[in-house]
């Protein structure tokens, strides 16, 4: 009965159906398909509840019934985002882009050494990396969490191998110390490392912080990497503005300076990051794709 695993919410069949949809559904009927499937995925209880609990912290005093409909909006945005991603990989059709903080983006492209892009589970992380690769000659290394389902992981790796260009490399955040050394070597060699810094997967070391007044943890990796290598961290967000339209938001870079008190240096960096993160999530809560409660206080 292992084939039934493919139908779990993070199973491989949904990814295959998404690919079928992108390649076969007339584009002028896509909104109907996306609206329907967003509604169907709203039946995914734990994901829906996770989004609703996070919304209750982001929008204090909000009603559960309103957050139910807001959760639909999150699912709707997520569906468009993953469809845009598959479309880009399969047909190289990119969305339109607007830029906010262009001066920081240009500075990032002009960095003589490496840099770290710290981003969040919102908008379209993959498309952002490809946009950067298209506008720059630099190699970008995307760090991401492995898929829960091994079959899905194999499928995604196969798709990525077939469709992703040479200027984008993908690495998976695991406990492996070897991978951390690889990243350090890459960033010292002048590569740009893109990491999602808004939630940590189990087994990854974290730095405790608060987000919207609730205790949580962000991955320690990007901050440790920035301190060890001395490269700047660029907070960067890919915000979905509408159908096939995204905004690249780049904030002022910062360094994690090595001092006698390491934890204090980390705390300062994390506070700066969570400040940007809170501001962006508060404005665009409908596309923060975090389907589990981000804090134990919300569980």
């Amino acid at each position, binding site marked *: 009965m292992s084939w039934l695993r493919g139908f779990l919410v993070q199973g491989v069949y949904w990814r295959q159906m998404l690919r079928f949809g992108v390649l076969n559904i007339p584009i002028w009927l896509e909104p109907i398909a996306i609206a329907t499937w967003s509604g169907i995925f709203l039946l995914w209880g734990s994901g829906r509840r996770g989004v609703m609990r996070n919304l209750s912290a982001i929008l204090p005093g909000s009603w559960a019934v309103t957050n139910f409909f807001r959760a639909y909006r999150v699912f709707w945005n997520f569906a468009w985002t993953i469809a845009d991603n598959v479309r880009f990989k399969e047909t190289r059709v990119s969305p*339109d882009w607007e830029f906010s903080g262009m001066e920081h983006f240009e500075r990032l492209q002009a960095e003589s050494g490496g840099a770290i892009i710290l981003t969040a589970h919102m908008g379209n992380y993959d498309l952002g990396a490809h946009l950067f690769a298209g506008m720059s000659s630099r190699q970008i290394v995307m760090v991401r969490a492995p898929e829960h389902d091994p079959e899905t992981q194999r499928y995604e790796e196969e798709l990525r191998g077939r469709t992703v260009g040479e200027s984008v490399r993908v690495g998976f955040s695991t406990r492996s110390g070897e991978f951390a050394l690889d990243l350090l070597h890459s960033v010292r060699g002048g590569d740009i490392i893109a990491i999602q810094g808004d939630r940590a997967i189990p087994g990854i070391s974290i730095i405790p912080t608060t987000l919207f007044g609730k205790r949580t943890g962000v991955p320690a990796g990007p901050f440790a990497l920035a301190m060890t290598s001395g490269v700047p961290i660029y907070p960067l967000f890919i915000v979905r503005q509408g159908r096939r339209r995204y905004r690249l938001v780049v904030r002022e870079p910062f360094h994690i300076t090595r001092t006698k008190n390491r934890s204090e240096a980390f705390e300062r960096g994390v506070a700066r990051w969570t400040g940007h993160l809170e501001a962006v999530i508060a404005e665009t809560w409908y596309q923060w794709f975090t389907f589990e409660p981000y804090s134990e206080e919300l569980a």
Partner: protein
Amino acid sequence: MTSVVRRRAEARWLPSRFNFALFRLFALIRLRVAKREERQVMFVIDRHQSAAETYLVATWLLATVSCFFAAPLAERFSTLVAAMIAVPLGSAALHVLFCSVGLFVTPAVRKLTRMPERWTLRFDSAVVMLGIFVSALYFAIQPSWVRIAAWQFLLLFALNAIVAIAFLPFRPFLARLEVELGGEPFGG
């Protein structure tokens, strides 16, 4: 590889960013009256790039197909109840249509004719539109009010076809517009 226009916000009205001829005509008029607008933007030149067009066409087609279901339902239920049942039925019917075309019709045609894979989506779209067109022809000759829904679909379909034919000689002109606005290849 796609083409893009950078820093020219009025490029959003490039007719080649629209799919249906009626929308292309509207975009052409809009582009002719638009002022030069420099902003930090990058617009992709792809015929399905317009959100307004996609949402309008999707809503129009769902409304039309829902009417095909609502008419017989309205004979048994109140109009409101019939409409409430017809919309999900219309959506389900469209799902059945595009899924069966994508799963069975197109693969069979590709096998028989060696149609290139890159034509798949255009072929699927043509067959699905043909399916809705044939349904509209059937409902256009029915005695109930559903024929109004069918006729408006057929009229808009015909109007779009006329404009598409009228646009044919202007293809080089549309391509020149892209160059004028600074269209360039983008290999992201």
